[in-house]
């Protein structure tokens, strides 16, 4: 049983790490919109902004898929753990 619990918690931790990476990126991505005027009116920024924001958007879009993928695996493992627990309890009762 302990193995399933560790595996489940490991996946939850993995999910949290991936989520936080996404949160950090999204925060910086949003911050671009709040740049001080010195950058907003800076001529080269018009040319630099598109590839930078596109890169952030790509990362955000990819990271948004992590939660669903990891969540499904974590749920699956949790179900397995619960199922085994029930089996163990049932076996204990039979004995």
């Amino acid at each position: 049983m302990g193995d399933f619990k560790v595996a489940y918690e490991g996946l939850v931790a993995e999910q949290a790490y991936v989520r936080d990476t996404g949160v950090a990126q999204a925060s910086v991505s949003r911050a671009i919109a709040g740049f001080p005027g010195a950058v907003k009116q800076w001529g080269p920024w018009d040319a630099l902004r598109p590839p930078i924001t596109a890169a952030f958007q790509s990362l955000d879009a990819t990271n948004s898929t992590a939660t669903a993928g990891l969540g499904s695996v974590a749920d699956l493992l949790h179900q397995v753990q619960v199922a085994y627990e029930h089996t163990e309890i049932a076996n204990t009762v039979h004995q």
Partner: protein
Amino acid sequence: MTTAPAPLGTIDPFFQNAAKEEELMQVRDKIQEFCNALDAMRPLVHDTLEGMLIASLGTAAPLVTACWAAFDGVIHVAPKLIEWYNDVCQWVWAPQNLLDLATAMQPAYDKATECKQALVRSAMPADKLWEGVAVDAYYAHIEKHNASASDVEACVKSMMDAIRDAGSAGIIATYVALGALVAALLALISGLVALIPPATPAGAGLIIAGIGGFAAIIAALGAFAQSQVGTVTAMQSKLDGTLRSNNFPGGTWPRAESKALVTAVESVGGWSY
């Protein structure tokens, strides 16, 4: 045992120049005041010029006309100083903002590194009792996500590097340009001193040359900046490719699906991708 990390707080990037914008605007207002004063002095200067020259040189209409035209030229181009002051301010501060942005990305990079380091077998030991294809599938899953997390880490790093490079290059270019700007500024001051007749045309020439120097420097900086755009665009293109590589099937993080859970608990066979 692995435990879930505490949720990450909101990151609020700090831009060093945000607090100084007001000061920069105050200097700009002073330059505007100078230009306004120059314009307001126009009739007075005209009369004074005329009076001084006629008193000292007698009827010197051509010289008076030349001085007048020179002074008028200075008044005409002076407002450009405001425009170029704004450009210079942006060049001095904007590259610093890019460096601040790269610094603000550090927590994202740290999290990506943490994520990669957490996704290793030794950090998630689940095979003390659990064995067979299911636990193998679990570790395969960990391995797949470790590869994806490594790619995310590399992507964040490449973004930080490209943005930092653009900011650093901008700062270096700005310092080089500032040297030239000081020379142009000295020409402007010399020209202002020489505006007093009868050297007005020569003074006006110095001022206009100084302002021309400003324009040339700003144009050169703009051309330099375009070269940095190529570097950042290359980073973005590479990042897009990485996020669509085998580690991200269909452009998403690897997703596992149950093979056999529905049949019976004992026949849990792992996952497919």
